[in-house]
């Protein structure tokens, strides 16, 4: 391996549509994210879609033309360089990446600007933006650390792609062509049931213990064997199979304790992290099935990590005290298990799948009090998704959770059960509170308001006009 990206293929329908929208609305400059796939086994990068970064909380565009420096007056207007709100673009990347399923990631940025202002911008500034994005969305198991920078120029009108090397920050041009990608994606889906037990010895906070449980699970998932539509996956398997594929993961029987786990004294309790993840991964044309399997595995883990991040984000956020959801998360995040004397239970947010492009989906996570409307709203803002979902509707694969009843001695493995069956389970009351959460992160509320402003300033931008209509 170790080969860099040599060619980039963009989805013709998606990319051309955005170019057309941009040239009709003609903003002076725009920045956004490239969603696609950089596979470690191939020198070909796939760009599925471009997502514009919305204006900041203050209503400023994340990318603008720098005001001409006064001391050095220059005659031509078009030579002003580009200026980026790097943190804002990075935050957008973080939010988009959380909504992407397996096989899709934020693999770079695009810039809509005139040839002149692009050229006037120093490569260091450009690679700084790409780097900021790459840092919040690291690509797993990729030997080559490279990202894309697609420049869509409006005068003259053409698109070009550069590869940005993350270690040196250098930019180099590469082949860029269009093809049919999204319409020929293959879908791999699975449900992964897990049950991780972590003995708690010291005073450890919520984040640490749950992170430990997730990393234990990561090892289990990474070593799992896969059945694709009931057939054991092997490297010899070819990629000509049709239709969406059901994947089952098999792990060694009863040997899922991590290697470093040894005998412990002074165990004050047991953390049980259990449930299912509905995972999905997309495989681009001409990619190997093994790629889809590792992307599906990654989707399982990132889904859990994202949910933990959401809980922690909410607890961190400058929360208003009357917001019950926030205070629940806050409580959870502040829990120190060691000190608890009564059984404790905290459900993770629920994953839902929202129709996106060409029959593919993105995902979002719902807290107990949230509805799919909340998710749709976030989607519109973050993914600049239109309300019209065509024939597709939201999928809610994960159902109301069950909780274990019983004490420590009932849940440890090989419990001396009075009854031969598993410990009793009861439904969690999901509507514990009547309060509705009004918004998710601070990012999404203001984005909605500011969209109006921008729209007025720049004229009718197709993407944001959708929000106005609703």
């Amino acid at each position, binding site marked *: 391996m170790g080969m860099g990206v040599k060619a980039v293929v963009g989805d013709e329908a998606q990319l051309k549509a955005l170019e057309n929208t941009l040239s009709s609305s003609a903003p002076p400059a725009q920045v956004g994210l490239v969603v696609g796939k950089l596979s470690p086994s191939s020198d070909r990068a796939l760009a599925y879609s471009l997502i514009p970064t919305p204006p900041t909380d203050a209503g400023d565009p994340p990318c603008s033309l720098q005001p001409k420096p006064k001391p050095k007056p220059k005659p031509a207007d078009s030579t002003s360089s580009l200026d980026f709100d790097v943190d804002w673009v990075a935050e957008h990347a973080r939010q988009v990446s959380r909504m992407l399923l397996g096989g899709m990631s934020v693999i770079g940025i695009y810039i809509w600007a005139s040839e002149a202002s692009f050229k006037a911008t120093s490569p260091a500034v450009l690679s700084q933006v790409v780097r900021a994005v790459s840092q919040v969305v690291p690509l797993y198991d990729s030997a080559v650390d490279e990202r894309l920078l697609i420049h869509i120029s409006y005068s003259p009108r053409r698109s070009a792609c550069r590869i940005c090397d993350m270690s040196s920050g250098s930019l180099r041009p590469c082949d860029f062509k269009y093809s049919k990608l999204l319409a020929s994606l293959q879908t791999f889906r699975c449900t992964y049931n897990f049950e991780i037990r972590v003995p708690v010895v010291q005073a450890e906070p919520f984040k640490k213990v749950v992170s430990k449980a997730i990393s234990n699970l990561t090892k289990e998932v990474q070593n799992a064997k896969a059945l694709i539509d009931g057939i054991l996956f092997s490297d010899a398997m070819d990629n000509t199979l049709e239709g969406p594929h059901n994947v089952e993961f098999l792990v060694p029987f009863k040997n899922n304790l991590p290697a470093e786990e040894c*005998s412990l*004294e*002074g165990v*004050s309790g047991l953390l049980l992290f259990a449930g299912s993840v509905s995972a999905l991964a997309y495989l681009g044309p001409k990619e190997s099935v093994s790629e889809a399997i590792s992307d599906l595995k990654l989707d399982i883990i990132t889904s*859990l990590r994202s949910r933990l991040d959401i809980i922690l984000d909410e607890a961190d956020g400058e929360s208003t005290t009357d917001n019950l959801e926030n205070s629940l998360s806050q409580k959870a995040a502040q829990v120190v298990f060691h000190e608890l004397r009564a059984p404790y239970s905290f*459900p993770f947010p629920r994953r839902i799948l929202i129709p996106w492009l060409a029959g593919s989906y993105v995902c979002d996570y719902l807290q107990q009090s949230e509805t799919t409307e909340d998710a749709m709203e976030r989607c519109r803002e973050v993914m600049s998704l239109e309300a019209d979902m065509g024939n597709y509707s939201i999928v809610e694969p994960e159902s109301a959770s*069950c909780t274990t009843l019983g004490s420590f001695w009932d849940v440890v493995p*090989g419990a001396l059960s009075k009854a031969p069956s598993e410990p009793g389970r009861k439904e969690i009351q999901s509507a514990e509170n009547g309060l509705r959460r009004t918004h998710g992160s601070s990012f999404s509320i203001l984005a909605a308001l500011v969209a109006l402003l921008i729209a007025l300033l720049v004229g009718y931008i197709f993407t944001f006009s959708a929000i106005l209509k609703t």
Partner: protein
Amino acid sequence: MAGSRRHPTVRLLCPKKSLLSPPSPSLRWLVGSPRFLPPLTVAAALRCLPGGADASSSSPDLQREADEIRGLLVRGFDVVGALHVGRSAEFGADARGALELARALRERLSGERASHGMVGGCVDAGTGEIQFLVSEGDGLEAVEAAGVVWEDEPGRLLWEKGCLLRCELPLKLPLYASSDDMSGIEARFFSLIESTVSKLRDPHVSYLIEGPLATRDESHYSVILHGNDLDSVSNLTHNESAEVYSANIVSCSKFFPAKRFNLSLTGENADAIQITILSNQSFNNSKANIPVVEYFPAPALASLRLINLKLDILCYSSVDLPVAAAVSELVIPGLADQLNVMKKAIVSELTTQQPQLCPYHFVPPGLFIPVTAIYDTRYGEIEEKQSELRRNLHLRLQLPLDRPLLRISNALKFSIGGTDKKASRNSSSLLRDVHREIPSSGVSGGIMSLIDGSYEYYHYLHDGIDDNGWGCAYRSLQTIVSWYKLQQYSSINVPSHREIQQVLVEIGDKDSSFIGSREWIGAIELSFVLDKLLGASCKIINVRSGDELPEKCRELAIHFETQGTPVMIGGGVLAYTLLGVDYNETSGDCAFLILDPHYTGSDDLKKIVNGGWCGWKKSVDSKGCSFFLKDKFYNLLLPQRPNMV
């Protein structure tokens, strides 16, 4: 006896000799496979061991016998009878007694009375006369067997229609106990084992079944079975009708190449269907629950012990059995058996350091079926308890008590995934057993007595050490040590010249200036080194002249028959290694099989044999030249075989 009933025949796969030695009165358990071999076929005999401390009692300790045999026998084989060995006063009573004991043992082993035919026999150790009683079904009635058939090709009968399945299952079981009250730990441990056994049949469990990699061009066949598949197949097999099997039910034969070349089971490379037990994390796809974090505080501080168990079982099955039935009826019960055997071994040491139990499979010489031994690898193989365990196994399997045949390195090697095990095993590239294809000695009517076992040929210039002219005795010593190593008596590395010199300095035989020198060593020094490094004792024979050596032929022949170790010849001149003698007692004609350490060429067998560097030497050859010099004295060093297993 009811003369009208048909009189069945007992078929024996084990050689008669194995049943008779030792001839002291004893009981043999007879092992067969009622399910996969023809009825009343005995594949092996295991000796019933005298009952522990209470040795005076003649009746066997059946509970102990059952516990030990359960761990030893692979699933698919069962106790099908017993044989009384001794001077039989009354055939009927002894055979009936053996039959009753066999039935009692069988009942303890499987928890139910045998439904198949059982045999009880009696053999007269003096005359070799053997007779059997046979009881069918309920065992209330026993008839005399019409005859006994000794099978010529036991391997063919066992393996033509039979095969092995192997399942390795590493388990890490978390055992929690209340820190201030350890009394409940045993009960929790038992319940942990029990729940583990019952989980083996959970519907979410999957079984990956892979055939052995037979040839290079044939990729191995594999199948996944799910928990639910097992039930359906189990029901079908009892249906007995082959047509009922649906196409997706694969029989064991499917996993082997159409033509199996190797029908005898050898230690180097055994073929087995590999079974891996997996847990299907995507079972019940339709029901996905939101992940929940739950915390259960312990009422009082608890302790956690990880119980590490490495299960490794073999099963014997007919190749016609559907593999799902083999998993359900052989593999899973076999795993449960081994888990229970290990449970008993561990329970007393739960709160201390756990034993590291490791099962190994063996087919020792004289046996045609594999057996399993579970060793505790905590303190190594040489540890006293482990030696005692091996000694008992040797006794039970009627193996000699001075030859290590059940060491870990003797265990069966399975070919997995095409990895070339041979290359990694023979780490040493030295030539072995170079005397195998040398021309005959030319002694007419002589009886050959040779070393017993393998050795490596060490000679001048090996390992880049220029010892030409002084290192011959060192080389002979290296060859002798290699014999001990290859016979599993020791695991030490063959010592270099310098290491040999160091030993001699350490024991005070030589000054420290000796290290690094080019001084000769002789038979006496060799005996010191062998004693120090291997704990091996030696006999020394002195002769004043080379002429006297032929007189020692009888003694040397006895040495090779009883000890079988290589002999070092030292003395006034050159050192040699002696590998055997060919001796005609009547004519006195004799020859010595010499392995010459003075060879300086490459390790080319042809060159070595043609050059006479390994070959028979007459004390006086056809040209009248003496091999051993008349005017020189000789010391013969006869290392003794250690009395250990």
